[in-house]
């Protein structure tokens, strides 16, 4: 189980890292899609089937297409997808920031007692690293998710629906040509 997790993590991180350092935008986008696949694999590994398929459907099916279209629409020639290198100083400072944040996070994770929490929220036996906690496997079947969505989280669902509608309209308004430019002759 852990080996699978490590494999998934290495795959996701490697594709993401390479994607963000490549100069060819299309290759970056495609590699990022691979990394999204890795994240979906993680969800599957964790037993969240529904979320994994939703992740693939939304990210690989929709967001990736939007990204690729954006890449192709914002270039003047084919060579434009290969972007000029950015300033080295910026990159170095960005890496320093990122590594610092990572250090803080790692320290926090390792110092906390999260791994030794038993499912009930009660800390396990002191020094009980040898006693592996009985892992409580929550089952989120589709039916359960549906019931939750329609009862506890109904308000959130409505808000998300409105947000998506607004985002759709907003994106269309932002990206649409000005009326004066796109005067088409009617057939």
């Amino acid at each position: 189980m852990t080996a699978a997790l490590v494999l998934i993590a290495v795959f996701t991180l490697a594709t993401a890292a390479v994607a963000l350092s490549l100069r060819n935008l299309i290759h970056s986008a495609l590699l990022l899609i691979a990394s999204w696949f890795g994240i979906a694999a993680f969800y599957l590994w964790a037993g969240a089937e529904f979320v994994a398929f939703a992740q693939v459907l939304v990210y690989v099916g929709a967001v990736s297409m939007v990204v690729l279209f954006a890449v192709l629409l914002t270039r003047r020639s084919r060579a434009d997808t290969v972007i000029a290198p950015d300033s080295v100083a910026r990159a170095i400072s960005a890496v320093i920031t990122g590594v610092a944040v990572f250090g803080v996070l790692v320290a926090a994770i390792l110092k906390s007692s999260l791994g030794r929490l038993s499912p009930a929220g009660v800390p396990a036996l002191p020094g009980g690293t040898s006693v592996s906690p009985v892992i409580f496997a929550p089952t989120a079947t589709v039916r359960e998710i549906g019931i939750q969505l329609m009862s506890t989280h109904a308000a959130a669902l409505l808000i998300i629906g409105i947000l998506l509608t607004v985002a759709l309209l907003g994106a269309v308004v932002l990206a649409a040509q000005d009326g004066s430019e796109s005067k088409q002759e009617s057939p």
Partner: protein
Amino acid sequence: MNLAVIPVAASVSEWSDSFLERLPLLARDWMTSWLPEPWRWLVNSLLSIAVILSVFGLLFAYVTLAERKILGRIQNRPGPNRTPIPFTKLRFFGLAQPFADGVKSLTKEDVVPRGADHLLHFLAPVVLLAFSILTFAVIPYGRHLVPVELNAGVLYFFAAGAATELAVFMAGWASRNKYSLLAAMRALAQLISYELPLLLAWVPVVLVAGTLSTTEIVAAQSGWQFNVIPHWYVFTPWGAAGFAIFMIAALAESNRSPFDLPEAESELIAGHLTEYSGFKYALFFMAEYFGMIALSGMAITLFLGGWHAPSPYLEFIPSYVWFMGKLSALLLGFIWIRATFPRLRMDQLTRFAWKFLVPLALINLGNAAFWSLSLHWSGPLQILRWLISVLVVVGPFVLLGRKLSAGVAPRVYRYAV
């Protein structure tokens, strides 16, 4: 499982668990019975993968042959009938034709443009084929024949199908050919446009069946009304409408005529596949047919009662035979439609999706909600329920159809006589 149980099983009057029904499982168990227990599971999975690949590979081969034969017959030609069995003069109506085609595409030169992105150019057909094969995993082929039981099986199917768009983009972009790229963009526009009605068409089924698992959806369609009318969703008003929308969207998603604009062999030199030749082209072709077969299988699962027999008196025929029969019927329909309808124009295509199919699918969703809310209606209310449901299907269809075809026919020629 022991072979000794066979006579016992056959004597059981319950046909649903007859010997024929369990034959594939028995064969599999017999083949893997010599293996130690921990390995058996793995080998069983590998075996089912091999069976799916070979059955659907063969089906693909013979669907191409059937397509050419039937197209020929519809155009009053005999179709391909000459390919003999190798080294003999036996022709058998050209049954060896698919293998001749395979050998031809394997031995053809694989041309890659000099400026192409070689890795992506190679990966595009592979990705497409891989994902179209992945979709076969959740379709229940028979009573005991489901490769993978997933809680969100339908979602898995369409998530795997979504990756085909990626492959189309990769093919168009990696070819380094502006026509390929433009055609890929057009193909993407089509795929994205028709993804929506395709997804919306099966939501009513999930709503009424109350599950996303393919096996449970099939189970929800079991039983017969008065022993004649099966409880398939296609025999309800919303189900019929959903099935029609699903099949139209499936035609477009699998790039079949009359929605074959992405390829349009006669006009666009195969669109995003312009720079593909030899076996890579054959892989694209194969993936397209696999997609068509998988979508038909999903349509059967969702609307046509899966592997259920249409009548209780026909249950002695094993369920997988029924599934394959329904699949062949749908594929025949695909071929028939291809032989009949002319290709749409790009603007007609998108208008048809957004202004006709999507609103109809949304109305159909409401219709299904009404259907499941009025489940307990009985007596004369039952007739009212049917009436309302049919009206909700037919009314918008007529109105939207009138609007869609307004100003289209008859065509007026300004200069020609």
